[in-house]
């Protein structure tokens, strides 16, 4: 059913002629292949449904009025900003896409270390503004080109800095949120006009209805403005760089910043070192980054990506280099950290603390990563998270699997078994890149202060080759057995498989009931149903909010 002229004109009256379109050429650009970068959806010939219109509001009032029109006429809607994944796209035929790119302001309260951001303020912009006044922010693994607000409100949002800055949820202060009904909810101190400084309460914290361990993935209306907590940045007012694209390096950030690749003789020593860092407030950023290229290839890939003329074709030659072979072996169990000193004494203490951890665990600093160019490249990479293109460089697409999130001591029990399984597939199937099996990458901690890791094995495949997608899908499906064996829950890349059909369409309530009625604690999903009924009575925002009709449990 197409939008009637009456509805289209009502929407047009809100945003103006230039900011709405039902031109087929425009609408086609607002579709996503569910298989794109997301093998968990499986091989698919389908794109997400074609929206009836795309609308670009510029203010909260405009968003509110758009959602009211949607309510009046029962039109599904989904708001998105930087469109990183399929979750930002609609899942029904009678639906419109809201594109928030016109809302992009950033205001900073320096003293109270807070930024008030609109949806299209991307991580790089917020960071650049923050650094001008000695502050920084948690940029999640998705990278600095993604929306800060969308990360924090709508997904998990942890990254290298989360150990010292916390993850998205922990950094949220006041939020302005247009509910699907068209009501505007302002959380915490913002609701009474007292300021953006607190996002909780009054009394029970209403933001709890909008965001859990995951964000709401656009399933509960539109977050239009948010205050996020910033963190100290003891560096210059902008990031100094040198070199040529795409191999920029940090240029003389100062003696109070160091980036190390710390290596260990075993998984046990590796885990023990992480536990030390959870207990000492020494690490500014902590990530296992370059292992995304795989255990067998990371040293060679580092040589390629730090060389502006480097190409994948160089892999074969580089892999014959005995020095690099030695580095590869040397970095078998590794991760990267940045330490940042607020004073000279603070830096001296942190340097000593790193040495202490290495002594206690038999670890060492990788010598290749201490070379100036390598060091400065890794420092820039982890500080800015601006190299997301490298996720795709091997085969054009990647997916994360195994999802060893949580207890690091548990994760290491699985790591080698997962690596062996992946290596077997790499060698016996042509669907995924052969990188050495073990390719775990992720954050030292997914929550502030440490305590819960967030690791995934990168799997590289070709999203334009259906056989490659099919093979990857089969591999990932099989991995679930390993997850079940160790009690890990759903595999990382299957986290979204229960929210949208492979063909891009929403699930029905009956389908969701069947999926979740036998969950270990099904009332979790029944409460989500009740919350949807209260805040989104016409169910207009897709099926990313997993629900069970409570009547199915009461029986």
């Amino acid at each position, binding site marked *: 059913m197409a939008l009637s002229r009456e509805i289209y004109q009502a929407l047009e009256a809100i945003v103006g002629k230039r900011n709405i379109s039902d031109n087929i050429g425009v609408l086609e650009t607002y579709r996503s292949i569910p298989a794109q970068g997301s093998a968990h959806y499986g091989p698919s010939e389908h794109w997400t449904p074609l929206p009836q219109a795309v609308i670009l509001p510029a203010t909260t009032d405009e968003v509110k009025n758009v959602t009211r029109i949607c309510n009046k006429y029962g039109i599904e809607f989904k708001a998105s900003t930087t469109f990183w994944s399929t979750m930002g796209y609609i899942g029904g035929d009678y639906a419109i896409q809201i594109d928030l790119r016109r809302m992009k302001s950033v205001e900073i309260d320096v*003293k*109270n270390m*807070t930024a008030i951001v609109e949806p299209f303020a991307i991580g790089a912009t917020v960071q650049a503004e923050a650094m001008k006044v*000695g502050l920084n922010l948690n940029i999640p693994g998705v990278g600095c080109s993604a929306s800060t607000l969308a990360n924090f409100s709508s997904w998990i949002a942890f990254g290298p800095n989360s150990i010292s*800055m916390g993850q998205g949820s*922990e950094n949220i202060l006041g939020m302005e949120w247009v509910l699907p009904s068209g009501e505007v909810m*302002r959380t*915490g101190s913002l*609701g*009474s*006009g*007292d*300021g953006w*400084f*607190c*996002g*909780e*309460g*009054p*009394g*029970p914290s*209403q933001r*709890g*209805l909008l*965001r*859990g*361990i*995951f*964000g709401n993935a656009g399933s509960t209306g539109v977050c239009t403005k948010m205050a996020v907590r910033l*963190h100290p940045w003891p560096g210059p007012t902008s990031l100094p760089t040198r070199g040529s694209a795409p191999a920029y390096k940090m240029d003389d950030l100062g003696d109070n910043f160091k980036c190390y690749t710390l290596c260990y003789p075993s998984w046990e020593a590796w885990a023990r070192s992480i536990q030390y860092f959870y207990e*000492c407030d*020494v690490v500014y950023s902590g990530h296992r980054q370059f292992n995304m290229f795989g255990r067998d290839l990371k040293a060679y890939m580092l040589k390629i990506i730090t060389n502006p003329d480097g190409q994948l074709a160089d892999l074969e030659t580089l892999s014959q280099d005995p020095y690099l072979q030695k580095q590869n072996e040397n970095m078998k169990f590794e991760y990267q950290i940045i330490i940042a000193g*607020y*004073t000279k*004494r*603070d830096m001296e*203490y942190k340097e*000593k*603390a790193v040495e*202490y951890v290495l002594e206690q665990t038999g670890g060492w600093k990788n010598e290749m990563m201490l070379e100036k160019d390598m060091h400065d490249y890794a420092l820039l990479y982890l500080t800015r998270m601006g190299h997301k293109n490298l996720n795709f460089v091997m085969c054009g697409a990647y997916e994360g699997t195994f999802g060893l999130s*949580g*207890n690091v001591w*548990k994760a290491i029990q699985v790591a080698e078994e997962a690596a062996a399984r992946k290596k077997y597939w790499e060698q016996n199937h042509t669907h995924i890149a052969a990188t050495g099996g073990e390719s775990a990458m992720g954050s030292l901690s*997914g*929550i502030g*202060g440490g*305590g*819960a890791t967030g690791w995934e094995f990168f799997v590289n495949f070709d999203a334009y080759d259906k056989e490659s997608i099919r093979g990857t899908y089969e591999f990932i499906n099989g991995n679930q057995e390993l997850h079940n064996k160790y*009690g890990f*829950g759903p595999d990382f890349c299957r986290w979204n498989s229960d929210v949208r059909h492979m063909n891009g369409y929403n699930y029905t309530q009956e389908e969701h009931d069947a999926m979740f009625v036998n969950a*270990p*604690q099904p*009332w*979790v999903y029944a*409460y*989500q149903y009740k*919350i949807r009924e*209260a805040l989104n009575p016409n169910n207009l925002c897709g099926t990313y*909010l*997993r629900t069970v009709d409570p009547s199915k449990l009461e029986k």
Partner: protein
Amino acid sequence: MESMKQKLVGIVGAKNVLDSQEILESFSKDQSFAVPMMPLLVVKPENAAQVQELVKWANETKTPLVPVSSGAPHFKGDTVPSVPESVIVDLSGMNKIISINRQQRMVVIEPGVTYEQLQPALAKEGMTLSTSLRPKANKSVVTSVLEVEPRLNCLHQFNYTEPIRCTEVTYGDGNQIFTGEAGNGAKDLEKQWEQEKWQVHSNGPQMVDMLRVVIQAQGSMGIVTWASFKCELLPTIKKMYIVPAKKSTDLEDFAYKVIWSRFGDKLYMMNRAYLANLLGESSDKIADLKEELPNWVAAVGISGDIMLPEMKVSGQEKDIAEIAKLAGLKFLSAIPGATGEEVLSKSINPSGEKYWKQTKKGAFQDIFFITTLDKTSKFIDAMYELAIEAGYPTEDIGIYIQPQHMGTSVHLEFNLPYDPDNTKEVKKVKGLYEKASREMSKLGGYYARPYDIWAGIQLNKDAQSYEILKKMKNIFDPNNIMNTGKLTLK
């Protein structure tokens, strides 16, 4: 009444249903200005299954339940029934320390566990739990954290709700789930531990944060029957320094810089009267201390534990001293009337039999809310003006500023001691409390924890939040049986 009692006896056992006049009276009022209301009965469940049965029974009979975990006296009105024929659910007997895990630095406890009970048990494992300022000896740790009493270590408050992580909650509709990451696994702690899941991650379980439904709720949404907490390592070196100042504003730049630098493990500011009350063991001693102490102090704690503690502490001592110097302040281990060691000891150890805020005059009324550090002085000035207008001695007003959530906001507290036997003084303080509460709100003070009259004041400024709150109540407590009448919810 008798059949009701028999039904409750069937749930919790005869010895755990109490109806003596003395006990009912003890729960009918507290030390605040809340209107007294006699409960019908007091029940003392012994486990989560009994709690769930109680809530189901209350739904069937539409009986209001008032959960109470800490021992008396109470001070905020939240444990006093707001409606007749309420049943008190006294959880103080559920006081088991269920699990301590040094590797994960996690502890799981029942709601009746107090700091006095918990800290020695954690110390044996080389850990401690952050506290609010000098908690009551019989204060429930679970309640203290659920109600977001401000912690002394704002730099480790990554999440607003720290240090609580996961809980078991029976919501007002009688359904019971685990919150946080624990809600995604089997509803059985033993089974979760077998899988090495230690209830570490507080958000969730899924796309809703079920813990946040019960925080700051005064028991109006459900009853928590266990909670997990993230512990700190027990320091091997701990020091407290004092930075004296003439005015609160003199400390602002210093405090902001210390927070920015992430130095120290404790930071708070208080005026002379508040510090004297904290340190003084008698009203005479408090009076003496008020003669000696500076107008304002910032207290800065520095600690080291397993990782090069001497180097860390000595480095931070020098660095923080330099920050103080740049702000024109002194960084001292002792000041006339107090040593840093005394301030630290009085701050982190539970109060004695008598709660420390009662020492000066026997009773007190607090007014507290959230704001930002740079705005505190306007509230302080206004409070003094209101006190003068009310004829309350300004020199008796204790003021405490506690940075929270890594310094993005502060808890600002005014403490008004009074003599409960002096009718005129009681009336004066009550009037000042009511007027100042309204005025602070008008100035932008945010009552995130809206006890007593603050609920009405806060929610009258924020109709949308009130509407959402009513929706929340309807989802989780549709028959309105949980602490009925609190938060002005109907």
